[in-house]
């Protein structure tokens, strides 16, 4: 018998055993459905119609109609994400203490199941010129400013992103908030901390890493806005977001190479924001949110 352990044992010690094989289907799926299309898109973006390598990217940064979409999309996605987070934290704090938590959570989550198009449809009916909301405003004489509208402009897209994004932000926040041991708040209270101080000194630092993750996920979701920007916004004007530019390149100009380049730029912008937020997160405490041995 040899002194060295069998190959199987050595592999197992490094975390490779029969169970590792179960990762294979998922790995193949990710490679086939995510990595390959991404790599292909990247490759395609460097093969513009004019034959150069960086032609698409140069065109993008030279054309205000294209590069301004970055700012327009950020101008929607950043405030929406921040506002959602700003609303989600207090609501999650309240819901945490409720007995009928499940009922309220279900109601709040409902918009997720509706989908953006249905929400847009509803908003067009409700906030549109013939909708209840505008008619009520007319009735009480508040809508006579002429240009006051809540659809087919920035605010239409903004509101719809809040409606569809909030449940998602809220659910994530709730899971982070409920992960904090309630005894910590009680301990802080017995030590003389008032509600605001308890939030600032105890909850906020423990919540910050989770809020950073929530911000990133909500932001990425909002940044990819497409249907509501078309249906509720001005697709050629103030809500011409970056995904619309990519769509037009691909399906109106049939320039897949340009569309790929725009998609890559979109990914890069998201990556920059997400990396910045995660870098800030690295500065915060990231250990367990419990107060000791449970």
């Amino acid at each position, binding site marked *: 018998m040899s002194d060295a352990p069998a190959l199987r044992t050595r592999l197992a010690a490094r975390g490779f055993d029969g169970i590792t094989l179960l990762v294979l289907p998922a790995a193949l799926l990710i490679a086939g459905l995510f990595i390959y299309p991404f790599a292909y898109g990247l490759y395609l973006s460097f093969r513009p119609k004019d034959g150069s390598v960086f032609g698409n990217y140069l065109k993008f940064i030279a054309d205000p109609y294209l590069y301004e979409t970055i700012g327009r999309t950020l101008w929607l996605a950043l405030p929406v994400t921040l506002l959602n987070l700003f609303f989600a934290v207090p609501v999650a704090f309240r819901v945490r203490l409720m007995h009928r938590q499940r009922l309220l959570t279900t109601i709040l989550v409902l918009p997720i199941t509706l989908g953006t198009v249905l929400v847009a449809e509803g908003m067009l009916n409700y906030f549109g010129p013939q909708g209840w909301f505008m008619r009520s405003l007319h009735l009480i004489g508040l809508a006579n400013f002429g240009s006051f509208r809540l659809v087919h402009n920035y605010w239409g897209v903004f509101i719809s992103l809040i409606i569809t994004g909030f449940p998602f932000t809220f659910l994530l926040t709730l899971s982070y908030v409920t992960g904090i041991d309630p*005894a910590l708040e009680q301990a802080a209270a017995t030590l003389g901390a008032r509600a605001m101080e308890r939030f600032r000194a105890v909850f906020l630092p*423990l919540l910050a890493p989770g809020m950073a993750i929530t911000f990133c996920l909500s932001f990425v979701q909002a940044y990819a806005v497409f249907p509501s920007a078309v249906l509720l916004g001005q697709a050629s004007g103030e809500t011409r977001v970056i995904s619309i530019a990519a769509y037009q390149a691909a399906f109106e100009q049939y320039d897949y190479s340009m569309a790929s380049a725009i998609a890559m730029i979109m990914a890069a912008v998201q990556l920059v924001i997400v990396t910045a937020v995660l870098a800030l997160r690295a500065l915060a405490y990231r250990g367990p949110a419990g107060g*000791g041995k449970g």
Partner: protein
Amino acid sequence: MNANASFKTLRLDQVGRDFGAMHALRDLSFEIARGEFVALLGPSGCGKSTALNCIAGLLPTSHGSIWLDDRRIDTLASEDRGFGMVFQNYALFPHMSVRDNVGFGLRMRRVPATQAAPRIERAIATVQLEAQAHKLPGQLSGGQQQRVAIARAIAIDPPLVLMDEPLSNLDAKLRLEMRAEIRRIHQGLGCITIYVTHDQDEALSLADRIVVLRDGAVRQIGTPQELYAKPAHLDIADFMGFRNQLRGTLVQQNAFPANVSVGLQFGDSTLFGFTRETVSGGQAVAAIRPEDMQIVGAGEAGVDAIVDAIEYRGRSFFASAHMKDGQKLYFASADRLELGSVVRLGASPQHVLVYSGA
């Protein structure tokens, strides 16, 4: 520095707490003098943690009032009471160092850093954690975390330190060490300590006085000696190690000034003892500790029993037996007894406590 520094007593007056239709706490009334260590003792669900949370202000009371001398405190928010509390799971702030945890209460009181620093160091020194002061709670052992929790509670010089089963997460050896430590810290502070536990050994060894709770109500208040020797009710006796509970027929009663001397008959044998509560009717229960039962001569008062099992306990043997009517008995024996042999077991009357058999 502290408005509560010169208080003399804490008084609970008919404090109650309901959860819906459930009375978690009923008419809890007692007074604790400064310097006293009081244990709230009882099985789980008896209301002891509810009582502690009501005193701490973490749970509003449904009835009654709580007073620190003549200042009513049950109407104050927890943060305005200024009591130190040690939680069962310690509840240390995981993102703060030991020093910041201990100093949290002082920071909330806006104590200037120059004054706070020596107080923090003193609290850390009291629990002997100087070498760990810069670490995060997650880097400490369970026993060290426990010490931080105590240091954090005492750093604010509270008039009252509340402890909610603080040792239940520690192993047996550490628990004994921390017990001595808690007693030492209490004596050094001169405050009131209220200590919740379900462990009678802990309560007996730590407390000056024990409040036994059951079903949200007080069953007995007394010194450890009183509770150990003279539990007021059978359930407390059971809790205090009176493992033999023999049901028999009351045969004679002689009224003495304090207690009533009674005889209890089991078939053809009789035990004599003293009643601890009013015994009426024919049936009663005699409670006797195993170590107070001895083998006696054939002519003496006692009960006959057949030995079922015997185990070696170092200094002596511990035996179990049963009487003719099937009731189980436990006793200590100097000799290894034969299984199946018949022995006569007696106990001196002052060790036989008789409770109502109803």
